[in-house]
């Protein structure tokens, strides 16, 4: 069953109508369908999983089956061919998040990324007090069997952006219910569970 999650609603608020969108790891296409129906965007979804591919195709979407780990996005798409390249909850599962970010920025004018915060206080507490790898609602996996191979904190991510001359255009930090709070705005890297980032190349580079 496709569901418009609060995260998707927050992303939608960042999208300009009639823009051109690429949704990497589009799943069953819920977000892309919503953006097409509500904002008249055009574009493509990209998804590796065959079942999700079929589900997205049933929605009448243009879906390209591809593996983000061994696909050269720049080979498929020209520079700046999209207004937005979106990737939700997939940064931590790819082989080289840093390289993928570069690729996304090459083909999209702006990119929108969401990922879980490894620096959330619950994760820190589990490691500090129990000496065990964290297991939470956002990160429910065992360390030896997890798709999340490249976890980072919001601070780590922003350091990477800084090093790569990537500008953070907008950031929203929320909890798992996708609500924000005063505390999350004050100490996002402690209290935020999920972050939504809108990024672009720094204009002076």
């Amino acid at each position: 069953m496709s569901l418009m999650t609060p995260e998707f609603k927050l992303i939608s608020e960042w999208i300009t109508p009639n823009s051109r969108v690429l949704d990497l790891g589009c799943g069953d296409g819920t977000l892309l369908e919503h953006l097409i129906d509500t904002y008249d965007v055009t574009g493509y979804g990209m998804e590796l999983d065959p079942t999700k591919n079929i589900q997205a195709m049933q929605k009448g979407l243009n879906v390209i089956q591809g593996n983000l780990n061994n696909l050269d996005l720049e080979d498929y798409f020209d520079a700046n061919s999209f207004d937005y390249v979106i990737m939700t909850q997939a940064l931590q599962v790819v082989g080289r998040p840093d390289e993928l970010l570069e690729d996304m920025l090459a083909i999209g004018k702006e990119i929108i990324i969401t990922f879980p915060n490894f620096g959330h206080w619950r994760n820190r507490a589990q490691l500090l007090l129990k000496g065990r790898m964290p297991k939470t609602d956002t990160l429910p996996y065992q360390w030896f069997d997890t798709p999340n191979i490249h976890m980072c904190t919001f601070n780590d991510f922003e350091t990477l952006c800084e090093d790569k001359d990537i500008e953070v255009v907008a950031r929203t930090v929320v909890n798992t219910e996708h609500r924000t709070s005063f505390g999350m705005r004050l100490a996002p890297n402690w209290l935020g569970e999920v972050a939504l980032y809108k990024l672009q190349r720094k204009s002076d580079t």
Partner: protein
Amino acid sequence: MTQELGIITPQVMSIESPLTLSSGSVLPRYDLTFETYGELNADASNALLICHALSGNHHVAGLDVDGKAGWWNSYIGSGKPIDTDQFFVVCSNNLGGCHGSTGPTTTNPETGKVYGPDFPMVTCKDWVNSQNELRKHLGIDQWAALIGGSMGGMQVLQWSINYPDKLRHALVIAAAPKLSAQNIAFNEVARRAIMTDPDFHEGRFIEHSTTPKQGLAQARMLGHLTYLSDDMMGSKFGRERRETDLKYSYDVEFQVESYLRYQGEKFATKQNFDANTYLLMTKALDYFDPAAEFNHDLTKTLSQATAKFLVVSFTTDWRFAPARSHEIVKALLDNDADVSYAEVTSEHGHDAFLLPNDHYMGIFRAYMKRVLHDSLTITTTSEAAK
């Protein structure tokens, strides 16, 4: 629930005006043999054309008079991925074929003798031009979709480039934008096998009341090899032998040899495939290169197309590997075209495009839903077939 189509009677369209071919030769007249399944709706908006592969023909679904099922029967019928309750499905035997359409086995009206090697070379473009006459003949202004695998997929590409406004969707399966040197080389070996058979008689074997069976069988064995994957042959035959003890002879010892010989034999004798048709079809494949007319720029070539595309490839297909489909997808993406692409996991190599497969069928059903949606929403224009 799916339902079988029953016995299908082929039909013939006769065109009595000359057709100028890509080679410059002129066919004074020609027939196209075709089959149809399902009903054409009132505004003729639900018609699909299926394009067949190298050794295929117009009998794609249902049963023929001998009770033989069509080559894609598992995909076409009531309740099947290509649903004949919703679509009017057409498939024609290519010009130059040997299953009813005018070809090397037809009598040349100018000489009164069978064409044989005198039948002019045909190209993918010629096929598309002749099929366009069939479109008019059937009163169809625009195909809801064109669907083809392998050589058929190339025909679909050609259609989308040459008659962009005559199709809404193009389903290009297990195809390539042109043949590679390796592809051409395989075709050439197949042709040499046929042409060096003592019974070939420079193509006039029908006049000599014989057929180059050995050559044709060898050509088929080679072709068949390129349709299978190494993995699949390994799991199907491995090094399995017919008998336990080695014979140290050139008789059939390994099961894979037996299988290949059987395939070759069946093709050359039981299926009675015409050797000249085989030669023609392989040449048409070799010549296929639509981008040649656009500075060898595939992006520019496909900028002609206005159809929406579904491109499908199979992981173990090495004849037209996924990378070849990527070329097509990339060119379509460069044009901001509506395109979907699926890379189906299958161990069956190139042959996979003909076989049942859950992912493949799921993709098909999902995409055909889109084709149906578009044909239902199309506004009925006053111009029926021109």
